[in-house]
């Protein structure tokens, strides 16, 4: 019950704010959505605690039938187990804090439709909760598309800025590519299992081990195909390499949006999907290898790009991309628990980082370029401290939350003892170094050194109001303690009791156990490279500021390669967008204008002629009408007598 309230309260808030926002005004809309979110987070956390303390048991809350078509049966139902309870608690808490933060951040919005913003934000929260609590793939897909829609609306919130509109469309379209894979995956799940209900599917995993598809003379194992298709969906939503191009651009949205959607929740939906489908994926080693490979590559790729970006939010965006890569590495080597653990800690510290960045931007009069900041750490000490906390957690410094989860992933990658696992290990280790490097590059460029902003801006630098800093403090608590608090239960000795049936792994999968037995140097490496990264950053940007410029001059091709984000956008423009445009142009001129328009126009002309003929008999005379009826009757009788006897 609490669980259902937690999920539907944001919908109520969104509906009230969205439908009546104009009438009741911004303040009331804010109050309503935030009250609903507070209620939701209260219920969400209680539901989680009840489940973990054993007061309630996991189960399914059925809300009614949705689709009933032959053997295809879908219910509206909420799945209440450890996985969804963790996600619901996390999402409601982070979303609530971000709602509150938005009051301060959006106060000076020139759009004057703040109710719209809050309605979208709550709508997003609802869709995300629907996604994580779904009991079948279709409902999950509903939430999946719902968060996509809300993300589109929020990225394009400042729709009068062309860049925001373009970014919103880019996010939507790139996600479509992934969604195609996801939809195909759902179809194949139904095809293979005869149901898309999680309980049914997971219960039947053993029976369909040998199911296979025969396409064009090749045979593919069903689980592998399903796993890869679902992962393609996850790649789109979680911005993995290849389909990551929308995430940096999505920073056009307001910063709270970036924090909520593009760091803490929506982008982690792909990771969640992997964990949710662990019972099937665990029997698809090929697909898992692919997941690890893509995740590791993304982690490394995004970290390298992050080192050269100058927009404060884009640096954090690439960092998010990279951290998502970590989570997929964990999922790929079978340590789903570790991936969800990292998801949880990451949600706190990345939301904290984004909100802190928002606070900086707020202080700098909406300046986002780090080259125009610097020397403000004395002016906004609280924000500065928070940035440190967030980066310490991100960098994996001991006893901050990131330390536990990130190390677990790196150890799991090593412990998997496979080729691709080791590839994952090395990629994530290098990425850990780069992560620490660009994090402290960000701190130093933003807060230290000589002020590079103009005089006017510097005069206005001020600490954010309490409504923005209090959420920061609360998130900081999470960023510091979440790892320590949940380590034992989620991936430590108690993980079996904690997860219950929520994550089912194959009997042959004992990564979590092997993790404990990795060599000592493996455990130490992340910390060492992290500290090395921090040191390098200090050397490069504080003590010897000439090095970065010199390096860039020495290796211009490398610098440009990284600055242009490995030329992904250009590659897509050349390989996909431009050919498609030419094709579309051709089809439009020849196919559409000439043939497709020509035929219907002709038919339409014929139809209109027919129309004018048909209505001629309708002249208003009763006698004509009566005769028409009688003639019709006689015709029917005649037809019957002549033909149907």
């Amino acid at each position, binding site marked *: 019950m609490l669980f259902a309230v937690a999920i539907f309260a944001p919908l109520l808030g969104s509906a009230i704010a969205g439908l009546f926002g104009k009438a009741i005004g911004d303040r009331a809309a804010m109050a309503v959505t935030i009250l609903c979110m507070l209620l939701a987070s209260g219920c969400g956390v209680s539901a989680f605690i009840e489940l973990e303390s054993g007061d309630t048991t996991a189960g399914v809350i059925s809300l009614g039938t949705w689709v009933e078509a032959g053997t295809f049966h879908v219910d509206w139902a909420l799945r209440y187990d450890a996985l969804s309870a963790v996600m619901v608690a996390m999402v409601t808490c982070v979303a609530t804090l971000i709602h509150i933060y938005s009051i301060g951040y959006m106060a000076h919005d020139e759009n004057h439709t703040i109710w719209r913003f809050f309605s979208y934000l709550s709508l997003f929260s609802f869709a995300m909760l629907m996604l994580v609590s779904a009991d079948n793939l279709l409902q999950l897909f509903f939430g999946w598309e719902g968060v996509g829609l809300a993300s589109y609306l929020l990225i394009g919130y400042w729709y009068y800025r062309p860049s925001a509109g373009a970014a919103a469309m880019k996010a939507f379209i790139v996600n479509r590519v992934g969604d195609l894979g996801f939809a195909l995956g759902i179809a194949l799940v139904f095809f293979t299992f005869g149901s898309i209900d999680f309980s049914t599917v997971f219960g039947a995993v053993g029976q369909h081990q040998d199911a296979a598809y025969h396409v064009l003379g090749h045979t593919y194992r069903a689980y592998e195909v399903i796993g890869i298709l679902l992962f393609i969906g996850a790649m789109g939503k979680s911005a993995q390499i290849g389909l990551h191009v929308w995430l940096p651009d999505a920073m056009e949205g307001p910063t709270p949006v970036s924090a909520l959607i593009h760091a803490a929740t929506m982008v982690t939906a792909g990771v969640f999907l992997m964990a949710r489908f662990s019972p099937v994926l665990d029997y698809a080693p090929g697909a898992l290898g692919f997941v690890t490979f893509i995740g590791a590559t993304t982690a490394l790729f995004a970290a390298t790009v992050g080192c050269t970006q100058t927009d404060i939010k884009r640096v954090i965006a690439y960092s998010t991309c990279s951290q998502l890569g970590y989570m997929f590495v964990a999922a790929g080597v079978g340590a789903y628990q570790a991936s969800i653990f990292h998801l949880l800690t990451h949600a706190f510290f990345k939301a904290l980082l984004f909100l802190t960045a928002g606070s900086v931007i707020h202080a700098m009069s909406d300046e986002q370029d780090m080259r125009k900041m610097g020397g403000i750490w004395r002016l906004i000490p609280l924000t500065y401290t928070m940035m440190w906390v967030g980066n310490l957690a991100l960098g994996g410094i001991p006893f901050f939350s990131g330390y536990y989860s990130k190390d677990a992933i790196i150890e799991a990658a090593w412990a998997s003892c496979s080729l691709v696992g080791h590839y994952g290990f090395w990629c994530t280790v290098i990425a850990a170094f780069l992560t620490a490097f660009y994090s402290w590059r960000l701190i130093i460029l933003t807060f230290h050194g000589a002020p590079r902003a103009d005089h006017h801006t510097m005069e206005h630098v001020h600490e954010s109001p309490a409504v923005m800093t209090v959420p920061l403090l609360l998130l900081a608590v999470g960023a510091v303690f979440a790892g320590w608090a949940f380590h034992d239960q989620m991936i430590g000795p108690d993980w079996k009791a904690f997860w219950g049936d929520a994550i089912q792994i194959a009997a042959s999968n004992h990564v979590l156990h092997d993790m404990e037995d990795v060599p000592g140097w493996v455990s130490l490496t992340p910390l060492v490279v992290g500290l090395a990264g921090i040191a390098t950053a200090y050397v490069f940007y504080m003590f010897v500021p000439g090095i970065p410029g010199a390096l860039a001059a020495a290796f211009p091709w490398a610098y440009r390669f990284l600055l242009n984000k490995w030329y992904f956008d250009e590659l897509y423009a050349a390989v996909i967008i431009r050919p498609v445009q030419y094709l579309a142009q051709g089809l439009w001129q020849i196919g559409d204008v000439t043939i497709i328009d020509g035929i219907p126009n002709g038919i339409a002309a014929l139809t209109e002629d027919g*129309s004018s003929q048909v*209505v001629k008999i309708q002249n208003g005379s009763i006698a004509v009408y009566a005769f028409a009826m009688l003639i019709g*009757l006689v015709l*029917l009788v005649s037809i019957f007598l002549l033909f149907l006897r």
Partner: protein
Amino acid sequence: MNWTLALPEIVLAVLGMAILMFGVLQKRHNPFHLASMLTVGAFLVAGMLVIAGPEGLGYHGQFTSDPFSRFVQVLVLVASSLTVIASLDYNDHANLRRFEFPVLILFATVGMLVMAGASNLMTLYVGLELQSLSIYVLAAFARDELRSTEAGLKYFVLGSLASGLLLYGISLVYGFSGTMEFDKLAMTLADPTKVSAGLIVGIVFIVAGLAFKVSAVPFHMWTPDVYEGAPTPVTLLMGTAPKVAAMALLVRAMATPFGHLLGQWQQLIVLVSIASMLLGALAAIGQKNIKRLMAYSSIGHMGYVLIGLAAGTPNGIRGVLIYLVTYVFMNAGTFACIIAMRRRGRSLERISDLGGLGKTDPMLAMWLTVFMFSMAGIPPFAGFWGKYFIFTAAVQSGMWALAVIGVLTSVIGAFYYIRIIKVMYFDTAEAAFDPRSASLSTLAAVSGLFTTLFFVFPAPLVGAAEAAAKVLFG
């Protein structure tokens, strides 16, 4: 004999007479609004009685209550309530504030309830007459307007002709089979040797009489003139509840007593259905008056519904019922929007009057867009699902040609529905309409929300329709 079977009808009729007395005796204030509210209340009471009532066959086999009749009765009550609500605003502005208006709607509804539960050809006829007579009067209700009286008169004369055909058909059937009860007819006709040509001709006459009521081609000629001339809430009524009741009657008559003659009447229904779809799609294109356009649109929609009957399977009947539900809501919503078309107190009916509505009244334009899309059968709106169930049933019965023609004509139909949307959003803006009354906004919103959100929870409705359809096939 279980007299409680007809309790909803009895209670509704008694309440109707009470409201009539109240209206006559109330002299100080104009009782129109109060009588309307009371009528809606009476519909509510009747609806609850329908839902809670017992099932069975009673009154010497003249009246029955089963899931099918209850489904139809609830739908009819909903449609009638929507009409009464729509009339509140229209009658105020058109100087038709007379309490007889809701009372006549109420008695028409009683007739429709009787039709839904008819299990005897005589009950069928009496119910039909009660409904028709009330609506003849309603059509002529604006008695100082030439168009309205002409509509009433035309409908009356042609309706009487149709009633004559129906009665003649009933007498033929009675003459050749010896009974008018549906059950006994079904038993008699199960024996092929007892089926004579005269009986089949009688069925043709009955089909003709009922086809007039659902305005299927070639018995549709009255529809455009009467739709245009009658006061708009009456047009709304004619487009919804009586269509539902008459269609239900046709379905029950064909499926239950004449169910064994499927091979015979199926071809008739197919012909009528094709002709209706074609005419509905073609003739509407040239229309400039939106009420006339809705008349042709309803002819087309009835053509689609008849496909479901022609399929002759429980799935087809299920499609018919679902289609009727969606049709009632989108039709009611559209007419609510039409009633709201008013400038300086004058009602407008030309399509061009909608020009620029997207700018002057975005809310109204949005709802009308929803209804037009739904009528055109564009997913995810309710209209699409109605068509979907109908066409699926036709394909399952192997009636490919019928389904293909249905799809083609709905493409043609989409042209004129979407043209209205084009007029609203892309044509030059005219002056804004008068402010809408709350009743119309509510009506449009309720219908619009149903039409939009039908796909979220279709299962209960589909389940009820399925249960209702199964009854007819034993």
